[in-house]
């Protein structure tokens, strides 16, 4: 690329953003060295003893590591799947609606939970799932025994996944709806003339034309395979469901902030970042190949 004098001001405009990135994202990366140290606050980064890969070794020896990684991936993968298919279905259904005002209304309402924090939502979920809560009222009405959902290892991941999908599907719906408006109406008109029913229109026009968007979203979400959602789990879990609900982020939180095991916490965090980084590269390559998505 050739340097052009008349572009200098564009580069100047980039500066503040770059500066923020350097100060808050790049410089702190130096802290990664803590993952290879027996970090002591009193000694600091400069004088804490180096212990090589011992933190990582310990991490793999932990009987818990398997559980934590399994939980993280299990929860994250099902959240990704849910967040791909539910909005897709919902967007198609919504698109079939005739009443414009009602459509907009529904669209806005399902979008709202996206803006609520898990601190608030978790309170609502806890209330709903207590033994006197709404859900258990229904269970009791059908003659079942009330279940403490949040203390049950069978139910806990399901609650995490379903509540996350419920919270986020409105957001995904908007992306699909945007893609739907981009479909040329002439295609539908032609199909109608050929005698296609509405299900057939969906099957042969809507779905195929949504595939690129779907692939794009799917590949981009691969980078999230290790993000099972700290806020949500942290606000909902308890020691009884560590077995099915403890994820990497909550573990790092407990190790690092509560027990001051900065070295170990950094090691776990670093490993997560490295894996996520690799996954992002993979997903970007896939996205550019299959969905023609390019950043540069």
């Amino acid at each position, binding site marked *: 690329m050739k340097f052009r004098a008349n572009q200098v001001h564009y580069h100047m405009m980039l500066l503040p953003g770059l500066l923020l990135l350097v100060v808050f994202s790049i410089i702190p990366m130096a802290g990664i060295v803590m993952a290879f140290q*027996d970090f*002591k*606050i*009193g*000694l*600091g*980064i*400069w*004088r804490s003893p180096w212990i090589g890969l*011992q*933190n990582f070794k*310990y991490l793999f020896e*932990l*009987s*818990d590591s398997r559980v934590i990684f399994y939980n993280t991936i299990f929860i994250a993968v099902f959240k990704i799947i849910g967040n791909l298919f539910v909005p897709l279905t919902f967007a198609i259904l919504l698109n079939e609606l005739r009443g414009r005002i009602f459509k907009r209304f529904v669209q806005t309402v399902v979008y709202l939970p996206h803006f609520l924090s898990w601190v608030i939502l978790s*309170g609502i979920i*806890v209330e709903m799932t*207590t*033994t006197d809560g709404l859900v258990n009222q229904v269970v009791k009405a059908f003659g079942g025994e009330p279940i*403490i959902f*949040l*203390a049950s290892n069978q139910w806990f991941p399901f609650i995490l996944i379903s509540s996350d999908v419920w919270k986020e599907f409105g957001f995904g719906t908007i992306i699909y709806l945007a893609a739907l408006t981009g479909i040329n109406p002439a295609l539908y008109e032609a199909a109608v003339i050929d005698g296609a029913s509405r299900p057939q229109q969906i099957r042969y026009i809507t779905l195929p034309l949504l595939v690129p968007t779907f692939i794009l979203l799917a590949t981009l979400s691969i980078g999230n395979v290790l993000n099972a959602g700290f806020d949500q789990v942290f606000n909902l879990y*308890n*020691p*009884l469901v*560590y*077995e099915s609900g*403890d994820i990497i982020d909550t*573990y790092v939180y*407990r*190790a690092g902030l*509560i*027990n*001051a*095991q900065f*070295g*170990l916490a950094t090691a776990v965090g670093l490993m997560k970042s490295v894996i996520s980084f690799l996954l992002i590269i993979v997903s970007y390559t896939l996205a550019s190949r299959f969905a023609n998505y390019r950043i540069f």
Partner: protein
Amino acid sequence: MRKRKMLAGVIALTLVLSACAKNEGNEGKASNSGASPTASQSAEGTASASKASEENPFKMAEPVEISIIKSVVPDLQLPAGESIENNHYADYIAEKTNIRFKVLWYATGDDYTQKQKLAIASNDLPDIMTVDETTFRSLVEGGQVEDLTEYYNKYATDKVKEMYGVANNLPLEKATIDGKLYAMPNISVLADSISMAWVRQDWLDKLKLPAPKTVDDIATIAKAFVEQDPDGNNKNDTIGLVGNNVDLYSFAYTGSYDFTGIFHAFDSYPGLWLKDENGKVVYGSTTQETKQTLAKLKEMYNNGLIDKEFMIRKEPSQLVNSGKAGLFFGPWWTPWPLGDSIKVDKTADWKPYLIQDSQGKYNTHMVPPTTQFLVVKKGFKHPEALVKHINFYLSSGTGVSGARDKAEEEQRLDNKLFQHLYPLYTTFDYPDAVARKHDMLKNALDGQIPLEELTPEMKGHYDRWQRDLQNPKAEPGDWSAPYAYLYGGGLLKQKMDKEVYNAFTATTKTMSQKWANLLKMEKEVFFKIIAGNKPVDDFDKFVEDWKKQGGDQIIAEIEAELQK
């Protein structure tokens, strides 16, 4: 989280209270010894008139400047023209001790902690600062702080030595490494360790139940509270013993809504490092007594005597305040949070009880005798200034020339700002300060001591209680504090038969790597034994795993540390 915030608030509160206790000691002592204020004032006059000599335990011969850092509250209101560094407290201290504190920087709450950690990490230390035990030990290890042994021996006053003595010199032991004293440790108020059962007395009376003494009584009461409709609304909506979703027990400052009191009644001290009869270190959560407690808790849970959903209760206080629960464990200061309960229901009559073990003995763990360590930066020229500063800080009531004088301070200092502006402020009080304050308030209410002898703080509580007596429970603010001192504080008069201190309160090398995992394992197993379907005998497997996964190694390290 809320609970923790509240705890922090209350600790802050005790700090405030103990600040005021300084003056109280002064007054009591002064009147007992019969030293008239005029006498001590004139004595002081001569002291400041005479040339400050090397022997003066409170004053530096030459003015010195000491840099410190300061944690402040967010919306601190200072008198016009004053700052965190330059204010009437600073002037007063400088005049009395010849020490001028220079505040390098100040910050609030977590920011302060973060900044301090950074400062330590980059070895950019103030001349004197306050740190916790783990930081203290690593500072000593890093050779960043001065050895204070000779300065303490040479300069500390009898009063300071007496106060450490009342605390059995335990704080000094904590601050001593390899026979050298590296810090002036604070003295904790021990009242915050004891876990009491707080019970709705009105419910007990209604169901004709006796006051609880043992764990079985607690079970009986819990059963009755669940089954016999104590609130009389003809609905099966009350629960027994309250628990919370984070901790089953506390091992330092006693929390609310946990089962600490029951553990203690089984002579079990989970979370603490104990020494057995052979001097071997044992982790309290791995003892047979702890197993027995878990078995009892499991039985109670299975019988519905403990809140079925305690493991998902983030805000157990809601159950208490809404009148759904009338039985839980908490510390002496519980009436503060109970203010909301009496606001909702004036008939709620909360009473605290201590629970005995099967031999009729009262056991408790104790908060560490010291939690704050005042350290002097390596290379600072006047380490004795710290000792003199503390001499002066604790000198009220001694009547020695140059000591703090209550009458003068009342005139010159704004008492409300004491813990905000007094340099290097920390809890430095008799370990039994709360019981002492209980006595003072009680005696004043019984008319045994004249009101003039009350400290400003206790006079405030006295007035509040008078207002509350006229219009009972109308204003939670009038009820909480005096009630806490009269009832919670009163119970602290009970002599504990067994007081268990944590044998080790810092962190070892292996702990810093493996503790999170061990703690997680413990929590998971304990919660599952009580409320899940793990059999009690899985406890033995837990102990084995715990030892294998680093516990044994940590114990060896702790024993080595304790040898030092």
